[in-house]
C-alpha cells in the first residue's frame, strides 16, 4: 500500500488504484477462513466454506493484473514491475494462508487424503474463477446477483470445450499452480517439528535453542484444529 501511495503521489495520477481494491477483495477469503476457525455449527461452516470458495479466486486474481504491466512514460518501469509483483505476491499469500486454515478445519472432519482432494478441487475451481473474472469480467457476488446467467455460461463452456480452449488452459494451468504452491506451504508448516540433525557437532547442539530438538509431531494445522475443538 505504501508503494502504491508513493506512486500516486509522485505521478499525481490514480493509475493502479484498482490494485488496492483487488487486495481488499483478496483479504475477504482470509476473513472467512478466520471466522471458520471460531465456529462449530455445521451449517454456519458450510456457509462460510461457500463464501470462502466464491471469494478465494480474488487472491490469485492479482497475478493477472501483471497483464497491465508495460513501460509507461510517467514512472520508472522497474517500480511498476515491483509494485505489481508485491501486490500479486501478497494476494497469493493471503489466499494460501486462508486455504491452509480451511484445510486444517477440513481435517477435523475428514481424513487427510479426503481434505487434500477437496482442496485440490477447490484450487481448480479457483482457476476457473480467475478465468471467469479476468476474461468474462464477472465478480464473486454475481453468483448471488445473477446466478442463471452464470450457470448458462458454464453449461456452454462444458458443452463446447473446443470453442473455449482459453477457459480450459487458464483453469488447468492456474489450478495446478495453486495446488502445487499449497502443497509447498503445507510442507514448510511442518519444518520446525523435526529435531536437530545428528551431523551437527556437539558444541553447536549445546549452543542452539534448547527446546529445538524435541521431536514433537504437532504443527499449526493441528494446533488450530485442537483450539477450535475445545
Amino acid at each position, binding site marked *: 500500500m505504501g508503494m502504491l501511495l508513493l506512486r500516486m503521489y509522485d505521478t499525481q495520477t490514480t493509475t493502479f488504484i484498482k490494485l488496492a481494491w483487488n487486495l481488499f477483495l483478496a483479504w475477504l477469503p482470509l476473513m472467512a477462513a478466520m471466522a471458520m476457525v471460531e465456529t462449530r455449527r455445521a451449517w454456519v461452516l458450510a456457509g462460510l466454506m461457500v463464501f470462502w470458495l466464491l471469494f478465494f479466486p480474488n487472491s490469485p486474481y492479482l497475478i493477472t493484473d501483471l497483464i497491465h504491466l508495460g513501460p509507461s512514460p510517467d514512472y520508472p518501469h522497474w517500480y511498476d514491475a515491483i509494485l505489481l509483483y508485491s501486490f500479486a505476491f501478497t494476494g497469493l499469500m493471503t489466499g494460501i494462508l486462508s486455504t491452509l486454515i480451511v484445510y486444517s478445519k477440513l481435517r477435523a472432519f475428514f481424513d487427510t487424503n479426503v481434505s487434500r482432494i477437496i482442496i485440490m478441487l477447490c484450487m481448480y475451481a479457483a482457476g476457473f474463477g480467475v478465468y471467469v473474472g479476468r476474461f468474462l469480467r464477472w465478480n464473486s457476488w454475481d453468483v448471488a446477483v445473477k446466478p442463471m446467467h452464470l450457470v448458462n455460461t458454464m453449461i456452454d463452456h462444458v458443452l463446447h470445450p473446443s470453442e473455449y480452449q482459453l477457459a480450459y488452459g487458464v483453469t488447468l494451468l492456474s489450478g495446478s499452480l495453486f495446488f502445487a504452491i499449497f502443497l509447498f506451504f503445507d510442507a514448510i508448516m511442518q519444518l520446525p517439528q523435526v529435531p536437530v540433525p545428528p551431523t551437527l557437532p556437539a558444541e553447536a547442539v549445546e549452543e542452539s535453542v*534448547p527446546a529445538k530438538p524435541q521431536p514433537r509431531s504437532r504443527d499449526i494445522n493441528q494446533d488450530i484444529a485442537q483450539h477450535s475443538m475445545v
Partner: protein
Amino acid sequence: MHTPIYRNALIHLGILTAFCVLMQAVRMYGSSSLGFIFLPYNLFLAWLPVLFSLYLRRSSKPVTMAMLFILWLLFFPNAPYIITDLLHLKQRTSFPHWYDTMLVYTFAFTGLLVGMLSALIVYDKLKGHFSKTKARLVIMLSMLASGYGIFLGRFLRWNSWDAFFNPLHILGDTVHRIANPIQYPRTYGVTLVVGGLLCITFLFFESFTIVDGTNAESRGQE
C-alpha cells in the same frame, strides 16, 4: 545429500521447478521459438544459494562456514532477481499474453520461494551461533545487500561471479554511488524497495516456523 529437515520443502520446490520448466517447454513448443529461454537458466542460478546454505548447515569449521556464508550472500540475489524479468513482459503476437504473464510470474514466485528457503536455512544456522536478534539482524542486512545486488545485476549487468573476476570495478561503482547519492536515485530506490520487500517476505516466512508450539516454548525460555 542427506537433509531430513528440509526434505519436504525441497521436494515441493522441486515439483514447482518442474512445473516451471514444463510451462517453458510448452511455450517453446507452441511458439516454435526460444522466447524466455533465460528463465530456466535464471531459476538454475536461483537454486545455487540453496546448495550453499545446505553445505553451510553441515559444516562446522569457522573458516568453511564464513566462506559458504559469503558464497550464499553473493548468489542469493539471483533468487529474487527473476522478479525483474517481469520487465520483459509485453503484448506479443507469437503467444497469448496471459500465458507469458503466468509463465514469468510462476518462475519469479518459485525463485523467491527457493531464495527464502535458503535464507531460512542460513538463519537457522546463525541462530545456533548467535542470539536470535543478532541472527535476524544479519539476515535483514543480507536482504538489503541483495536489493543492491539486484540493482547491480539488472541495471549494471554484473553476475555473482564478477565479485571474483572484477572486484575492483564493482567496488569502484559502489564507492562512486555512496559518494554521490543525489546522482543515483535509481540505485537507492531499487535497493530500498527490493530490500524492504525481501525483509518483509522473510519475516512472513519466519513467522510460519514460529507459530509452532515448540518454538513458542523456546522463546519463553530465552
